[in-house]
């Protein structure tokens, strides 16, 4: 097990390791924190995020659960109401639907229903997204659905820094926070200061500055969007890339500041187009920045099909850099 040494010198690590470091940090700092989910203990996590934590923290705090998302999410809610700070891992968003009743009807409403007598300081982590050839039942991107629900916060860490830093901040929240980790990000690697720590969870961040068009995105699509921005730059188009980071609440101020500057907006969202988070963002831009717009708002979403299994069809169904480039140029009136 890697020892965390003090210091700011950067270390090379993967997104997976950054999430693991965040979990270890939270478990070490707060005795009320425990991790619970399917295969998080002995197996080390479906995506190997919690690998090694059982040996380090023991079965009381790294708890393997039965295959019963509704049951253990409900247990997490109860533990949170009773004073613990549980981290529930729902293996993927696909399985979270079995816990939707607990999340929507209990976690998000208990503070309201109890007249503020109880809160649910619970963090639920789950993997999301397609791109790994897991076919139509295991490739959903439903974070936009969760962002519809008042009473919870929804985060989408796209960078190592956010993977490392959002968890602790989320654990300080008095109400439930859902953290969506895109499956395509676990293997990305880069450098992070050894003492990297908590980050804000309420602000969008401009990941690339540009003057011509705002590309608004989050999570797994961030890297495709940055790739598109690089391609656009080669054609003389300077795209600004906004990483939403928080899907609920949305940071309207940062979005409108960018759109107000570039006067063109394209939203990139791995969810299906109809009723998507991209639709919500587009509407907010219309409500708040209509008079700043120079073109209709563009969207790059997943095609409205069950996500196909064959790799070439799966790739074709998802937002990809060439589609983002095309949409950005269309917004600028360039073929």
């Amino acid at each position, binding site marked *: 097990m890697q020892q965390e040494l003090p210091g700011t010198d950067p270390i090379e690590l993967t997104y997976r390791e950054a999430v693991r470091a965040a979990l270890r940090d939270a478990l070490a700092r707060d005795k009320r924190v425990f991790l619970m989910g399917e295969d998080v203990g002995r197996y080390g996590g479906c*995506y190997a995020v919690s690998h090694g934590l059982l040996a380090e923290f023991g079965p009381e705090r790294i708890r393997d659960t039965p295959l019963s998302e509704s049951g253990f999410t409900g247990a997490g809610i109860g533990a949170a109401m009773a004073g613990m700070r549980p981290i529930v891992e729902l293996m993927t968003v696909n399985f979270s639907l079995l816990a939707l009743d607990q999340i929507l009807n209990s976690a998000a409403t208990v503070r309201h229903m109890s007249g503020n007598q109880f809160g649910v300081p619970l963090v639920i982590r789950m993997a999301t997204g397609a791109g*790994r050839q897991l076919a139509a039942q295991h490739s959903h991107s439903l974070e936009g659905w969760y962002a519809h629900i008042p009473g919870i916060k929804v985060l989408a860490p796209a960078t190592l820094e956010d993977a490392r830093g959002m968890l602790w901040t989320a654990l300080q929240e008095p109400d439930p926070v859902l953290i969506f980790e895109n499956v395509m990000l676990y293997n990305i690697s880069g450098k992070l200061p050894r003492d990297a720590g908590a980050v804000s969870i309420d602000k969008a961040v401009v990941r690339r500055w540009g003057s011509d068009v705002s590309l608004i995105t989050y999570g797994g699509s961030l890297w495709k969007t940055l790739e598109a921005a690089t391609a656009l730059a080669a054609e003389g188009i300077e795209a600004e890339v906004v990483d939403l980071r928080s899907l609920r609440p949305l940071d309207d101020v940062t979005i409108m500041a960018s759109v107000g500057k570039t006067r063109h907006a394209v939203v990139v969202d791995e969810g299906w187009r109809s009723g998507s988070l991209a639709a919500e963002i587009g509407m907010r831009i219309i409500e708040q920045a209509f008079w700043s717009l*120079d*073109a209709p708002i563009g969207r790059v979403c997943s095609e409205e099909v069950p996500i196909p299994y064959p*790799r070439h069809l799966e790739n*074709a169904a998802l937002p990809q850099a060439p589609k983002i480039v095309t949409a950005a140029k269309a917004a600028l*009136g360039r073929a």
Partner: protein
Amino acid sequence: MPSLGADMETGTLVEWLVKPGDFVKRGDIVAVVETQKGAIEIEVYQPGQIVQFLVDLHSKVPVGTPLALIRTEGEAKAAAPPPLAAAAAPMPAPPVIPQPAAAVMPPPARPPVPLPAAAGVAARKAASPAARRLAEERGIDLSAIAGSGPGGAITSTDVERHLAAAAPPAEAKRPLGLDLAAMRVAIAAAMARSKRDIPHYYLQHQIDVTPCEHWLAARNATLPPDGRLLIGALALKAVAVAIARFPAFNGFYRDNKFEPSAAVHVGVAIAIRGGGLTAPALHDADKLSLDDLMSGMRDLVQRTRAGRMRSSEMTDPTITVSSLGERGVEALYGIIYPPQVAIVGFGKVVTRPWVVDGAIEPRSVVTITLAGDHRVTDGHAGALFLAEIGKLLQEPEKL
């Protein structure tokens, strides 16, 4: 290299458990691969004969990379050497497909949203919201501009380009008379600047103007209407005389310093019907006789309302006096007209119980106010200045 977990991207081949020429059947363990989760034994799903290893030991390869060539029974019987395509990897791994850039069919550009064209009506020129707003602000006709945006729509960039290309607009002919809209813009700018830049302080002082009224009544009794003095003339004169003794209220504040003025040009605030306000100067008011002052005021009001002010009158005032007159209120707190540094306000004359020589009498009382620029003067000086005006008005015959 089989996928041994949804997130596995690569694996390292660490051991072969078969050798070329061996026959394998479904379920045989043929190799060991090192992954994130440790060493994992690889089973084969395709019976046949190992023909060739395609990956070196200890090399790390992406998921989907063929590790070895297996000749199936059918192929072994065939005379021709097996074509590569027919060979199967140890597990029916998906073929390696070029990465997204090539694999993704570049989507056809979405056709630009068709621009709505109203049937039977001349098609409206498509322009973006930002272009429309800019054109309206700058008073530009969009029909004169070519669009470069999606579907040929006019964008704000097109409007900016048009603005840059257009010749500087000819000086608009100034209409004779008063342009109230322009005046309102000027008032807005001056007052906003004043409230932004000038730290105002306010003082008020009530004075008994009964002596003025008595003196005016006696003086005006024998004069025709156009020769009569109004109390406003006394007030103006009192301010002009007082300010000559308090020069810190008379002048301009410019470039972070106060420039006192030797001459006393009192700006007279004049309300204009239809909504407007201006304060042209009565030049050298401190030196004018009361009669000259009165006729000067009459002339100024008349010409102002006709829109015939002189430029010097507009730029010269060194202090402003504002009076709301009979229809006004008891006190007004003015906003200094920059770059001046003071404004004196006169409320309307009201009858109030007043103590004169130990007895209460009804007297005519007026409230005078001062708004002063605290960068130049302090309240103490302002109080002395106001008191001086009050004192002067007790002896109108000396004005």
